[in-house]
């Protein structure tokens, strides 16, 4: 016989196991609906891989594991997915969670499975993957994904594999029944798990001595396999993982460590059975054995129940009398939790549905003050000081709670069970644990918030600094531009008062004048050259017509030569001379009457016209390409001349009209109209005339006007008119004009 160790504390609550063992293992009718929570295990929820309305077969994957810490979920029977939504689940909070809802079609038709005749030929990875794909999660109550547990860290060598068949909690007999019915397969499962974890030195199956039948069948099944079935005295909570390890091996799992770190792996017998089914027959975890017990039920027994079956359906199948029922508890009376909503489903970890009558489980008496009896400390299987923890939990002294190893509490409820003051101690510890975890999470969150706040402050400061730098740069640039703009402004202001600059300006203007002088000399030279050239050509020419043209050209050239010489002379006489001349001219212009100014303008236009015509003729003769341009120029000049002459005529007519009016003309308006008409006609005629003709015409008109003016003067002398001097000056002017005109002609 193997040595059995004892654990500290522990209690002996009424076992109440016989009720559910009277009837054999049974099955119940298929429910109308199956609700499969996506998170029946510890870790991240599975991801649905089916759509609403999809038909699925029994054993088909409907939700895939997400990440390592997760488990797959399979359809427990064939049917249709009717919803994927939040439904209340079996949880002390009574909260809802995402579930896949399946409506069975009643056919219970299996999908194609991949059994394996010889699992011993498969390697470690394949076996673990098979278990993983079967969606196994610890069936003892915690629901830890089995595949993860079977992959311990390489540093942790598993020396002892323990199958937990203890089932210490009152009322529950599911594992007991399993071991009675499926002993062979549990043993096969144990061997399989042993292979997976590298054939540990010893494989133990721990069973309490209150299950003699299970012990017998298991010992029979384990005969010759090297598996040792260890029987030990009944005591609650021997079934706790750490407690069982201590009982069977004498080793204690250190605080905050896991059994694998001391070379031990514990699996529930139900898990071993499911692992064997998964590997040997390819069956996923879709059903489990659950104890349905309590005095409010007509039938109390163990059943095979499909995962997802609503508790209400389970109870219904056992003659549930709701009126008699104090409360419905999932799990046992020590560690289970009561549920309000009976529609919550059976999940992979549901080992018991307890529906006690009022008499069976009266409400807990009100808590009284702690009398410091110390019984809780004696009962604690984890060697804690429940009384201290209770004080600190009430005072919310979380540091002290942690120092007193609150997190080693397995929440078995032994302390509550023994407390003579009926203080719900475990509830304090649970709340304190929650509070500490919440505080930790809050601290992490506030640290992150602080970090983000600091980063934001930094970022804003940086942005501000950058903006400031940019602003400074812009300011500098603006100042530079301003300075540049002010510089040239300032410079001339200085120069105006700078005699040197004035002298420079003067020198520059002198230079200009030098260049003008040079230009004039050049012009003179070129004209001289042309005259010589023409003289030569005339001498050589034999054609008389051509000679005439050349002679005319020569004359023009000689005129130009004369002009150029005069200009040069004027220029050489003094810089101020041309300016003075110009001033004189301006002065003369100002003094001139509009009529005379107009006449002068006409004279200059006529001069330019003559030159232009000459150039055009020359171009025609020599067939230069500039001919069209020249022609255009001539036409324009002619137009201008016509305009100017028309204006002149108007002016003349005004002048003549005025004296006539003054002289007391009988019909001044008629005369004026006549004059306008005459002038217009004249202008029209003039537009058609050649310059020579125009000149002749001008002379004629001048002569006529002089005649008229003389007559008027005589008339005025005779009548001793006051207009006499004005008329005389007009006459003089006309005469001088006539002379000018004659000279031009």
């Amino acid at each position, binding site marked *: 016989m193997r040595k059995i160790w004892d654990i500290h504390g522990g209690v002996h609550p009424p076992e109440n196991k016989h009720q559910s063992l009277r009837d054999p293992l049974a099955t119940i009718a298929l429910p109308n609906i199956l609700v499969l929570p996506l998170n029946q295990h510890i870790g991240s929820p599975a991801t649905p891989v089916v759509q609403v309305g999809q038909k699925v077969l029994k054993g088909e994957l409907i939700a895939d594991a997400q990440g390592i810490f997760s488990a797959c979920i399979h359809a427990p029977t064939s049917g249709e997915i009717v919803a994927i939504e939040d439904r209340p689940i079996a949880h002390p909070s009574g909260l809802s969670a995402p579930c896949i809802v399946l409506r069975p079609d009643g056919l219970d038709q299996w999908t194609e499975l991949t059994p394996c005749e010889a699992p011993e030929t498969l390697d470690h990875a394949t076996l673990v993957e098979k278990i993983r794909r079967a969606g196994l999660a610890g069936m003892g109550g915690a629901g830890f994904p089995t595949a993860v547990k079977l992959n311990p860290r390489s540093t942790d060598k598993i020396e002892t594999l323990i199958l937990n068949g203890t089932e210490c909690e009152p009322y529950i007999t599911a594992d007991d029944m399993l071991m009675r019915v499926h002993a062979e397969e549990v043993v096969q499962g144990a061997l399989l798990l042993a292979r997976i974890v590298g054939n540990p030195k010893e494989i133990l199956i721990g069973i309490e001595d209150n299950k003699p039948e299970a012990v017998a069948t298991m010992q029979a099944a384990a005969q010759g396999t090297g598996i040792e079935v260890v029987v030990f005295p009944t005591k609650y909570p021997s079934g706790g993982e750490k407690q069982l390890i201590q009982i069977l091996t004498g080793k204690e799992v250190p605080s905050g460590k896991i059994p694998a770190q001391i070379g031990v792996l514990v699996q529930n017998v139900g898990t071993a059975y499911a692992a064997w089914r998964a590997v040997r027959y390819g069956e996923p975890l879709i059903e489990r054995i659950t104890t349905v017990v309590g005095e409010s039920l007509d039938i109390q027994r163990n059943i095979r129940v499909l995962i997802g079956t609503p508790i209400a359906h389970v109870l219904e199948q056992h003659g549930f009398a709701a009126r008699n029922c104090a409360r419905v508890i999932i799990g046992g009376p020590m560690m289970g939790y009561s549920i309000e909503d009976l529609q919550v489903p059976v999940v992979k970890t549901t080992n018991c549905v307890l529906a006690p009558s009022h008499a069976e489980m009266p409400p807990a008496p009100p808590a009284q003050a702690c009398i410091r009896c110390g019984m809780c400390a004696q009962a604690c299987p984890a060697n804690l000081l429940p009384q201290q923890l209770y004080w600190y939990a009430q005072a919310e002294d979380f540091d002290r709670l942690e120092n007193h190893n609150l997190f080693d509490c397995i929440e078995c409820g032994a302390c509550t069970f023994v407390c003579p003051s009926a203080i719900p101690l475990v*509830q304090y510890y649970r709340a304190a644990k929650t509070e500490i975890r919440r505080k930790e999470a809050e601290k992490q969150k*506030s640290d992150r918030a*602080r970090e983000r706040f600091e980063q934001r402050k930094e970022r804003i400061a940086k942005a501000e600094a950058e903006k400031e730098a940019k602003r400074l740069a812009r300011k500098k640039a603006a100042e530079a531009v301003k300075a540049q703009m002010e510089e040239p402004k300032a410079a001339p202001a200085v120069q105006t008062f700078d005699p040197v600059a004035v002298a420079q300006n003067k020198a520059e203007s002198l230079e200009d004048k030098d260049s003008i002088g040079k230009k004039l000399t050049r012009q003179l030279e070129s004209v001289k050259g042309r005259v010589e050239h023409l003289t030569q050509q005339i001498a050589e020419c034999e054609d008389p017509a051509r000679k005439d043209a050349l002679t005319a050209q020569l004359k023009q050239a000689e005129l130009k030569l004369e002009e150029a010489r005069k200009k040069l002379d004027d220029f050489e006489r003094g810089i101020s001379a041309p300016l003075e001349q110009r001033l004189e001219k301006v002065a003369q212009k100002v003094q001139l009457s509009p009529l005379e100014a107009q006449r002068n303008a006409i004279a200059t236009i006529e001069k330019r016209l003559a030159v232009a015509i000459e150039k055009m003729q020359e171009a025609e003769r020599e067939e230069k390409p500039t001919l069209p341009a020249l022609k255009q120029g001539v036409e324009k000049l002619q137009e201008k001349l016509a305009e100017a002459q028309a204006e002149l005529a108007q002016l003349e007519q005004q002048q003549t009209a005025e004296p006539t009016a003054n002289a007391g003309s009988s019909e001044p308006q008629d005369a004026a109209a006549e004059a306008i008409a005459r002038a217009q006609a004249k202008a029209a005629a003039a537009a058609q005339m050649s310059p020579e003709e125009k000149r002749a015409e001008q002379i004629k008109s001048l002569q006529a006007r002089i005649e008229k003016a003389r007559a008027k003067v005589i008339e005025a002398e005779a009548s001793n008119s006051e207009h006499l001097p004005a008329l005389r000056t007009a006459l003089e002017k006309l005469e001088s004009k006539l002379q000018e005109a004659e000279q031009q002609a």
Partner: protein
Amino acid sequence: MIDVLLNHPVISALVALGGLSVVFGAVLGFAAVKFKVEGDPLVEQIDKLLPQTQCGQCGYPGCRPYAEAIAGGDLINKCPPGGQATVNNLADLLGVSPPTLDAEEDSNVKKVAFIREDECIGCTKCLQACPVDAIVGAAKQMHTVLTDECTGCDLCVEPCPVDCIDMIPVPTTLKDWGWQMPKPAKGPFIIATDRTNPQEHAA
């Protein structure tokens, strides 16, 4: 020299004391330079106790400025998000008797900002208001709140020109659900009749 010291105990005592003071002065001076404490540890400690919502309800632009103010002598009861618990912790740290909170305590329900996205006009005003950069968005783009980063400080609600930000209580999920502390026994129930509800007697 030694003779002089031996003959004049007063002088020798003075020399000894002087020598010691020089040595210890040097040691202290060295220690002051070598083990100089950077920053103000008190501010750090106070800052750790504050809830880091950065809400500014204390009148300072964030939790750290308030921590600095407390270290400078400001009152410790100006933090509504922290509640009386924070006030007590601060009083504990500073060794004073805890004053009562200078405001109505925020209800224990954690809240986060929620932007009704249909109504958001993308003005970025809330982005600028958020002290922890928990709102994402850009000009003329819809904004949304990073729920995990939101401290529930409320500062984004006021600047919103279209009032599309709600402070909604964070629903309890299976992850953060926890057991409640049992209600402590009322009074010392020494004998069984003490348990009886007085209302039952009346009825």
